[in-house]
């Protein structure tokens, strides 16, 4: 489903974030990416939805080489990938409902169907009763759950999460990890970059450890 073939990524200024990275993710897997800060986990995740482009090698997602993808085709790639960002990227001037609605509005889903799917996604993450609330009124854990609901509402085949349990208490972090497991159980391929490997250990199919931009194990 996802293949990294001798991928290198060098940022302007010559900093090498990834080098000679080769590995594949099969459909339905739940991969945990771990490694020290600056190991290249976030960069690796950003290559999948073409937020960053590799400077060397190929990143193939669903048969498409993302490295060679035209700019105009990138939005359509991203619509098939659910993304949870380290800084969540919620819209604080929009309600919980409207935040989750955004991917469906972008995809042009009919309003009635979209409303039903938003409520289903909010129900899955336990935020249905807060649909009218503004994100600023939510706790850190609730904000993370909101980000997850937004990532899964368009029913993506791939879910990519960058430090989804950062800054959360243990109990909330465990809930989030279980939520990823639940999505994986219904066939969603999950890639999680985290420092909390232990939380995901019961659910992961594989662990990929990065060190200085290369696979350590």
């Amino acid at each position, binding site marked *: 489903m996802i293949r990294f073939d001798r991928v290198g990524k060098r940022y302007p200024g010559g900093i090498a974030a990834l080098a000679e990275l080769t590995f594949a993710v099969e459909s339905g897997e739940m991969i945990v990416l771990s490694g020290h800060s600056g190991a290249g986990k976030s960069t690796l995740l950003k290559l999948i*939805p073409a*937020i960053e482009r590799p400077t060397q090698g190929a990143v193939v997602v669903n048969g498409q080489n993302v490295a060679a993808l035209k700019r*105009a085709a990138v*939005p*359509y*790639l*991203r*619509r098939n990938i659910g*993304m949870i*960002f380290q800084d969540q*990227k*919620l*819209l604080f*001037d929009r309600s919980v409902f409207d935040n989750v609605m*955004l*991917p469906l*509005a*972008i*995809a*042009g*889903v*009919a*309003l009635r169907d979209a409303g039903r799917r938003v409520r289903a996604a909010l129900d899955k993450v336990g935020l249905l009763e807060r649909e009218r609330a503004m994100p600023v009124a939510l706790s850190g854990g609730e904000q993370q759950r909101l980000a997850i609901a*937004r990532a899964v509402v368009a029913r993506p085949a791939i879910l990519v999460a960058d430090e989804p349990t950062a800054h959360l208490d243990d109990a909330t972090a465990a809930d989030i990890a279980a939520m990823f497991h639940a999505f994986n159980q219904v066939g969603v391929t999950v890639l999680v970059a985290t420092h909390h490997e232990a939380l995901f250990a019961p659910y992961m199919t594989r662990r990929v450890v990065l060190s200085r931009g290369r696979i350590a194990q």
Partner: protein
Amino acid sequence: MKGWLLHHRQAAALAARRLAATPLNTLLGALVLGIALALPAGGEMLLANFQRLAQRVAATPQISVFMALDAAKGDVADVESRLRRHAQTREVRLVRRDDTLKRFKESEGLAEVIENLPRNPFPDAFVVVPRDEAPAALEAMRDEFAKYPRVEHVQLDSAWVKKLDALLRLTRLAVALLAAVLGVALVAVTFNTIRLQILTQRDEMEVSRLLGATDAYIRRPFLYFGALQGLAGGLVAWLAVLGATFLLRGPVGEVARLYGIEFSMHILPFPDTALLFGLAALLGWLGAWLSLSRHLAK
């Protein structure tokens, strides 16, 4: 197709909500654009009315034939007979000097002056409507009539219409140039408004892009915003021109009556009104498009 229409509906609704969310800014923006548009629109309205007036005053060219002041009645009758027999005259009307004097005595402000004159200063005159309106034919007739006995002066009345027409053409060009300059100003104002909007909507644009929004999707609400703002400016301009028309209608009618013409100013004609709104929306859209393109290209 349904999704595309839904995007447009949502983008238009979002743009309208953004306009409604800041009523004071929207009003001020519409006023700035409206005043800029009102100048050429008002100029066009005045031109259209003056053109109507000019057409009414002299739809066909006329030749005025003035007799000498001391011409006898027999001389006048002779010239009248020649004019009526002339193959190129369609209509001949004699304006008697006594009638002219009477008319001027009835004119406001002139009565006293006329009363104090020792004798009637007006000659007998003929107003001739020619069959052939070609300039060369008119000039030939003028030269011929000038040679008739006791004819003092012949005046081709189409000359001033030509001058007026040339002046109107020149004014129309000036209005078009003014419209072009103010159109650029309108684009610049919208460009800046949208630039400020982009700054406040930057997070939303970034998140939308990450979630799979195309440039067209991101651009659309801003384009609608620019077009709606332009339309609001067009509405302000139209109302300003409408108000000016009603304010001027009375005084202009009075002036026209002093010249013996029944004239009422018309509001901006429908094609010009449609053009005003269309151009206002288009220029607003263009300003937004330029602003967005600059941002999205970064």
